[in-house]
């Protein structure tokens, strides 16, 4: 998977690049409107992460240019402006998603994977981790060819974790993935504990190869070691 990151802030650029690299996603960067346009003209990407406030131009023009040239890239807008009008305008111009700063990197990765997966025609639409496969279109989880019954929140949490395998996710990021950002985290953490406990038990009972692990009260990690599992076979 190859991604173009258009972001003028160096520190944020490096952070996002590093996070995507850890998820084995290749990233190229552009800091200006001009650089972004030339990259888009010269190469093809699976997804473009677009900051709409650029020093030398409006990021939305990059989006318009992409659509004008009928390029297939998915576009996720990352913006400091969390305003409905911007969001609506971006989506109307053909963006696939809109993420307001400051986002969780895990959230960004989940969204990137989601928009790229949606573009894949006729291919795999499920996310597979060993014997666990999650089907986002049907909101269904299958382990060892058997349906795993999850409630809505358990499913949301698992989806988030499956999008970020082998990464330690902070519990507040998990809480936000379920509740959105209008809930103060501290209030919702008790709920996260009990949901995660149930989810872990369900995965274990279904003998999923991916293992949900709590880390020191900090957060959770969905551990799945492909090579190790393969060597067992």
């Amino acid at each position, binding site marked *: 998977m190859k991604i173009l990151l258009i972001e003028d*802030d160096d*520190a*944020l650029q490096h*952070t*996002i690049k*590093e*996070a995507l690299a*850890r998820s084995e996603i290749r990233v190229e960067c552009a800091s200006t409107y001009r650089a972004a346009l030339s990259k888009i003209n010269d190469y093809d990407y699976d997804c473009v992460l677009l900051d709409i406030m650029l020093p030398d131009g409006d990021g939305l023009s990059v989006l318009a240019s992409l659509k004008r040239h009928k390029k297939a890239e998915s576009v996720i807008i990352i913006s*400091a*402006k*969390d*305003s*409905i*009008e911007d969001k609506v305008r971006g989506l109307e111009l053909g963006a696939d998603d809109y993420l*307001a*700063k*400051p*986002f*969780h*990197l*895990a959230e960004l990765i989940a969204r990137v994977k989601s928009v790229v997966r949606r573009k894949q025609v006729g291919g795999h639409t499920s996310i597979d981790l060993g014997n666990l496969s999650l089907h986002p279109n049907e909101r269904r989880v299958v382990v060892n060819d058997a349906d795993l019954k999850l409630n809505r*929140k358990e499913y949301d949490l698992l989806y988030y974790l499956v999008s970020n395998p082998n*990464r*330690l996710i*902070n519990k*507040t*990021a998990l809480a936000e993935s379920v*509740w959105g*950002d*209008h*809930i*103060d*985290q*501290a*209030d*919702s953490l*008790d*709920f996260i504990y*009990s949901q995660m406990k149930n989810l872990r038990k369900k995965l274990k009972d279904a003998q999923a190869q991916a293992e949900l692990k709590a*880390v*020191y*009260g*900090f*957060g959770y990690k969905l551990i799945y070691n492909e090579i190790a599992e393969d060597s067992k076979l």
Partner: protein
Amino acid sequence: MKLVHYTHRGISAVAFVLMLAWGALFYFTIINEVMDETDDALANTRAQLVKMTLQHPEQITHNACALHSYTIRPLTYLEGMNYEDRFYDSLRYIEIENEYEPVRVMSSSFKAPDGNFYEMKIMQSTLERDDMVEAILICLAILFVVVWLCVALGTRLVLNRVFRPLNRLLHWLDNVLPGKPVPELENDTQIHEFNRLNEAALSMTKRSEKAYVEQKEFIENAAHELQTPLAVIRGKLELLADSEELNEEQLQYIDQLFGQLNRVVHLNKSLLLLSRINNGQFTESAPIELNRMLHNSVQMMQDIYDEKSVSVVWDEAGICIINMDESLARVLFDNLIKNAFVYTPQGGTIQLTIRPDEVRISNSGEEPLDEDRIFTRFYHKNSKNKESNGLGLSIVKSVAELYGISLTYSYQMGMHVFVLNNVN
């Protein structure tokens, strides 16, 4: 008290005192004049009578007082020597009419050719004078009332005219609202002071409007500028937490940093939301059914605050529909419901009452809150909740104000009660 009434009262009071003083002066002057005339006439009569009496001394003994207008009586030598002439008011009995008549009396003495002293009292009726006094008083009273009415009417007419520019200016000031553009001021007048007042009011409103806009922009820009650094910090923390070689203690520190960072992020978002609401950036509105929205919100909070075992009592009589921006409606009710859940003690009760034009959200609580301050920003005097950023209710209030919804707080029978009245 209105300026017109106040001025009118002042002018009336002054006019009243002046007219009273002038009336008294006028009255006493006239009376004095009349009195002098009468006394002069009496003195003349006396001179003639004395002359006549001295020429016809027999009249003294006859005591001829055919007209009852004078009496003569003898005096002792000693009395006669010390007699002083004087004038005074008295009464005279009139037999025919069987009544008393007011008279002016001059009593004097004279020495007859026989060497004896006599006292002569001459009387003159003052009925005419009393009539005159009465006439004067009536005229004065009429004058008094007429002048007073004229003053009252005149001042009112004049003042109303004079203060018209002032009233227009006051009306204009009523229409000046923070956050709204300053309306045109059409208030031409020839009165110098009012012109200056117009200019001063206009420049002051424009200045405060400018300051208001700048402050709003400042808050919004500051909040925006913070988003990218916050995103960097959050991202770096995530990357750091995901490194392999961290021990438990180090992870705890990062966890605490996450928690604090989230507070900053939320505070920043709330400030942005507040400034956006106050900037009037939410202009969309659609009819929203509050019953369903409240049920959804309560459902979500019940999930989150499951451990608190709060019981929720619904009292729904009809559907409440309100015209507003949907995301703001959610902000408004989520905040209120969340507030109720957060501040209800363990095992407490939340009561929701929905009427077509009213929504009432009550929750149990131990002591009343300061109703004047709970909607102000960063008020958390009684708040035990450290996570509260102190902006929730202030956002609620701003949203309510934006749509002309009245929002009141009261403490009744151990419950905090928030009442929303749909008045739009």
